[in-house]
């Protein structure tokens, strides 16, 4: 459960306070808004990348603000999209005249609030484009209806690297959309998280069971199944993700095995051993795998597998340097 807090209604503000104090070498508070922006932003002539959503998912989103990734993260309350007003202010703060790309998870609240901000900014002459992340194969049949989970990381990395090398807004948007089109994720949950100030978890999972199709917001999964061994879980995750592989996407993939708060690194490595072997057995070439915590849900227990089918251009962006509080790559 969430134990460290003072007044739960001040949780977000205090979190932003501590985060900006710790990482002032990367970023600073957006004046008069619930957001953090990279040092050096706005950079005239450079496309700005704006990310955001509810908090409780660190390192998504604020942890990815810095060089080579996002220019600004708008920070909502725990599991709550930031309001259009906050998104608007953050957009104004980072626009460098070359336009702003929004990328965020496809949730009703986020779509509404980011959508309102986008309209308002467009009306004021700021060119804003949006790529909503829809990686979770468990969340809907139609890709456009799917929600975003840990695959967020790939889109933030792609957009950030594209903007950092000076691409136009058209190109940043097109590349980020291409990354989203080529990303698939699937997750499972073993236990729910507890919001600050609450004493009961959002949901519980019977011991001996697991929830298939986790939500990153503590929502229960799509259905229950009997708990299985790491090897069986690896097989299931790989099968489900590959069954939904994008057409004609080649055979080179970036791999991200994401752990939620209470499922730890050692367990992820045990699971990863079979995931790696099975992906290779299915003919894929694995590029720079990542195993760790990349998109959380407070102290929820669970994990997800995300694949991004790379082409040369996406790979170049994926391999580009980045330096942020939560992800640094040389």
């Amino acid at each position: 459960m969430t134990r460290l807090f003072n007044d739960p209604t001040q949780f977000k503000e205090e979190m932003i306070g501590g985060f900006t104090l710790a990482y002032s070498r990367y970023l600073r508070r957006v004046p008069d808004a619930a957001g953090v922006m990279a040092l050096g932003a706005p950079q005239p002539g450079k496309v700005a990348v704006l990310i955001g959503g509810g908090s409780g998912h660190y390192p998504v989103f604020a942890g990815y603000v810095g060089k080579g990734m996002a220019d600004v993260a708008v920070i909502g309350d725990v599991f709550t999209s930031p309001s259009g007003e906050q998104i608007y202010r953050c957009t104004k703060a980072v626009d460098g005249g070359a336009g702003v790309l929004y990328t965020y998870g496809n949730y009703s609240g986020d779509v509404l609030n980011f959508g309102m901000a986008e309209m308002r900014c467009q009306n004021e002459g700021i060119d804003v484009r949006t790529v909503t992340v829809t990686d979770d194969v468990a969340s809907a049949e139609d890709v456009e209806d799917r929600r975003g989970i840990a695959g967020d990381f790939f889109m933030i990395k792609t957009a950030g690297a594209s903007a950092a090398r000076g691409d136009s807004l058209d190109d940043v948007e097109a590349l980020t959309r291409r990354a989203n089109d080529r990303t698939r994720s699937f997750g499972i949950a073993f236990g729910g998280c507890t919001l600050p100030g609450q004493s009961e978890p959002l949901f519980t999972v019977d011991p001996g069971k697991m929830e298939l199709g986790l939500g990153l917001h503590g929502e229960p999964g799509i259905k229950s199944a009997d708990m299985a061994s790491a090897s069986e879980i690896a097989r299931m995750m790989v099968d489900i993700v590959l069954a939904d592989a994008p057409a004609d996407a080649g055979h080179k993939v970036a791999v991200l095995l994401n752990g939620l708060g209470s499922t730890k690194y050692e367990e992820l490595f045990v699971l990863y051993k079979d995931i790696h072997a099975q992906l290779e057995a299915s003919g894929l070439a694995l590029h720079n795998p990542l195993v760790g915590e990349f998109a959380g849900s407070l102290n929820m227990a669970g994990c997800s597998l995300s694949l991004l089918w790379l082409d040369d251009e996406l790979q170049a962006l994926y391999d580009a340097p980045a330096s942020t509080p939560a992800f640094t790559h040389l």
Partner: protein
Amino acid sequence: MSTQAKLAKQCVANILAAIEQAEDELARLDAFAGDGDHGAGMVRGMRAAHEAAQTAEGDLAGPVIAAAGTAFTNAAGGASGALFGMFIATVGQSLNAAPDTENVCRAVEAGVNVVCKLGKTKVGDKTMIDTLMPFVRALEEAAQQGLTPVEAWSYALPAAKSGMEATADMVSGRGRSSRLGERSRGGLDPGAVSAYYMLRAVADTLNTP
């Protein structure tokens, strides 16, 4: 109550009180198939709405309600922050100087339509609309029957309640819980419950001498 504005402010204050009292219940309802933040978000939004309403100037109700709605949207966040805020703001903006029953009805209808449009929702999707839409239809009936605004609001409230209750047996078609399919059946929709509490708090205010 001496002015429309005062009455509107009193409505907002009573909605806030009702929502604060229901915070835990709303959180629990949202935890069933959503992410548990609905109680906190509604309270945050209503506190801001109340503050904005209290400091709004003039004698008319419309601007007070509009200010409350804008403040709600800015403070609450989330799906319900955007939708309830736009609902309230639209009602306020649509309410003209002489709020007879027909005008009130048209204003609420304008608010409901904005929610349907922004949220791409219709009745039966297990959202706040399942409370609000039957309420508007009943308000229309009341207007046709020539009831006063206060009478009309009380007349329409049971339709809102039935609409809210009907969400328990619906499968979610919109919002976070829509990803759960059949698993979303069985719980009341938190936004439908909030909507009902808001409407009921207004009825209570109007009926207080």
